């Protein structure tokens, strides 16, 4: 195995394309190294992207935030502007593993690992985040929900690297939130998770909404029916009940040791309500 630390994204893409499937991109390594040690993958080349300066920063501009692919999740939590604008995205990233794991893991890694239970992915999907992708033939930008296509599988073409996650500039009266159900309070994997992102008008009526569910289907679900239910409401009880029913109905979960189909369906509805209320409260404070 070889280890290379390129200093430009062009070099990283070139190395990755040249290695034709036998290379792995290393950012935080919290999934990659575990899989290598377990013998699940045996890359011939490790491409460490942390020396690429542009990938190591969170930048804020007129249009929003650019979160570089090599930024550890702990650093998201330390960024006050990002926390203020996108608290749901930040809280999801700061639920991944332990403090030790958060010191290494990245939201791009979480996305590319393509686990249905990834914590940051529902929050990014609800936030309408986009992935900026660099490949051998140029750049493209796609919605985050189009990256994972199944457990452990992404839509990235050979040689492509996600260089950053893009989040829009925050509109006034907007809020997002993320919660998950786990048997333990920390260091656990989501059995069910939900993320909601809302923008209100000046009367407190929901103008636009995005609702995403995690760990209840092969990929994170963007539940458009749930968003339509919330839009035009002030989150009264009847709306919340319809939201819960829509979310439970949208689930396509599996039975496993962490939860049954029936349990996951039920909890998806309960969590969606709680998370919608949390997002609404945050939106009302701005």
């Amino acid at each position, binding site marked *: *195995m*070889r*280890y290379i*630390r390129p200093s430009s994204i062009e070099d990283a893409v070139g190395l990755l394309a040249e290695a034709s499937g036998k290379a792995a991109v*290393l950012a935080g*390594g*919290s999934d990659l*190294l*575990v899989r*290598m*040690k*377990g013998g699940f993958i045996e890359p011939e080349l*490790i491409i*460490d992207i*942390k020396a690429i300066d542009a990938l190591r920063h969170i930048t804020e501009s007129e249009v929003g935030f650019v979160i570089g692919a090599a930024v*550890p999740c*702990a*650093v998201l939590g330390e960024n006050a502007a990002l926390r203020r604008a996108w608290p749901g995205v930040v809280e999801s990233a700061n639920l991944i*593993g*332990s*403090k*030790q*794991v958060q*010191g*290494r893991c990245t939201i791009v890694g979480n996305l590319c690992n393509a686990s249905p239970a990834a914590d940051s992915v529902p929050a990014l999907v609800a936030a309408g985040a986009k992935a900026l992708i660099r490949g051998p033939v140029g750049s493209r930008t796609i919605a985050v929900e189009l990256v994972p296509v199944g457990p452990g599988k992404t839509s990235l073409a050979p040689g492509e690297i996600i260089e950053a996650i893009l989040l829009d500039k925050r509109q006034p009266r907007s809020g997002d939130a993320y919660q998950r159900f786990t048997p333990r*309070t*920390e*260091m656990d994997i989501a059995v069910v998770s939900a993320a909601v992102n809302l923008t209100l008008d000046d009367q407190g009526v929901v103008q636009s909404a995005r609702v995403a569910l995690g760990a209840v289907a092969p990929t994170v679900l963007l539940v458009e029916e749930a968003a339509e239910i919330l839009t035009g409401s002030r989150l009264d009880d009847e709306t919340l009940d319809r939201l819960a029913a829509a979310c439970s109905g949208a689930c396509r979960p599996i039975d496993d040791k962490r939860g049954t189909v029936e349990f996951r369906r039920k909890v998806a509805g309960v969590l969606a309500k709680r998370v919608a209320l949390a997002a609404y409260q945050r939106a009302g404070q701005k």
Partner: protein
Amino acid sequence: MMAGIAVSTNINGDNAEFLCHADETLLDVLRDRLGLMGAKEGCGTGDCGACSIILDDCLVCSCLVLGAEAEGRRIETVEGMAQGDQLHPLQQKFLEHAALQCGICTPGFLIAAKDLLAKNPDPTEEEIRFGLAGNLCRCTGYDKIVRAVQDAADVMRGA
């Protein structure tokens, strides 16, 4: 065979250089090449925290870092906590509170607690428990560790 990767880094304030293989973890480098035996291998998969170190101000598991990644970085290990014979307040309070039994987890707890108190000098019990959730101890039941960290935090704040 391959010659190995030459790495220049800084460990506990001292410049250090070593050669390592591409697939060698920083934990193995610290222990097997540099003789720093404080960090322990418990699980090797980032679940137990026994190999915790601070890498450029971030708490990490050194079992999930490649040795080659240490190039140009700053590393803090448990060996850097005491100043000569003067124990770090966390070490002193771990002794006073008997916050260890077998001791395997202790270097990881000390480093994780040091990182916690650097970022949050006056944590609540809940914040300590969440902050140290990535460190497993199979002996103490954690209460003594939490009390030792609280006590050390008081000392370090001069309270």
